[in-house]
């Protein structure tokens, strides 16, 4: 349970900026192509999730990793979590 809570805290920081920027890219796609596509948002979300992980945790707040290390989550496992959750959320946008 603690691990799940830790993962939620970890991903909470990524979800908002990733959603906002993916939505903006969706709107830009709409302005260019004249058609609103959730697929664009979904694909953007998958890549932007990883990109925001890099900027937020590797560049800006690298010491926060110690918070998650103390709860048993390694850097590699956090990268895998970002990838899997971003993929799942991105696929939801692509499928619906």
């Amino acid at each position, binding site marked *: 349970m603690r691990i799940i809570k830790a993962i939620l805290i970890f991903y909470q920081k990524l979800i908002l900026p990733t959603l906002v920027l993916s939505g903006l890219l969706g709107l830009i796609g709409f302005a260019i192509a004249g058609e609103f596509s959730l697929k664009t948002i979904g694909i953007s979300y998958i890549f932007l999730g990883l990109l925001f992980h890099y900027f937020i945790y590797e560049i800006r707040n690298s*010491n926060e*990793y*110690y918070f998650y*290390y*103390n709860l*048993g*989550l*390694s850097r590699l496992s956090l990268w895998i979590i970002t990838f899997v959750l971003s993929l799942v959320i991105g696929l939801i946008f692509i499928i619906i």
Partner: protein
Amino acid sequence: MSKLHVDSVIKNFDTKQVLTDVFISCQKGEIIGLLGRNGTGKSTLLKIIFGSISADRKFVKIGDKISTGLFDNRKLIKYLPQDNFLPNHVKIKTVIELFCDKKDAELIKKNGLIMPMLNKKSKQLSGGERRLSEIFLIIYSNSKYTLIDEPFNGVAPVYKDDIKDLIKKQSIDKGFIITDHDYRNILDIATRILIIHDGGTKEVKSKNELIDWGYIPETA
């Protein structure tokens, strides 16, 4: 009680060998003060024991269990790094509940120093308040061994005695390895002092030996 046994630690940074065959052991009730000049590898050693950085060679055992990584260590070893590590978007009380057992969480929440911070997020605290909450969190956290890197750095002198008392009280149930350049405070609470010199650990029996090892000047 499961003893912490650290042996054969070797760590190189490029061509520089920082740690050469280090040995440390710690038991419940012990507070080991780890001293050494800047760049001798104190923090590196703590991180290797904790499992957050790799070593060229290491052997870490807690009781009968050989430590293989952070996931294995999550209920055995906690580590307080030198710099602030709490996520800035989470309330202090949430973090306390994540790190501590129910009983210890209630104890911290009732502490006069921590109580005013409970409903604040880490980003709403000053650097000193953040450090104080991290120290309490790690000392009370659910673990058998606690590794603390520079607990007295950035903390107001008035709180240093509280921190020392807290470590002493908690050492009844767990072992501590602490490093800090504020060696007087370390000497006050440590049950054993080790100094890192030339990549290895040497046991120090008196303050005079710290002078002999070149850690403090003769005038200190």
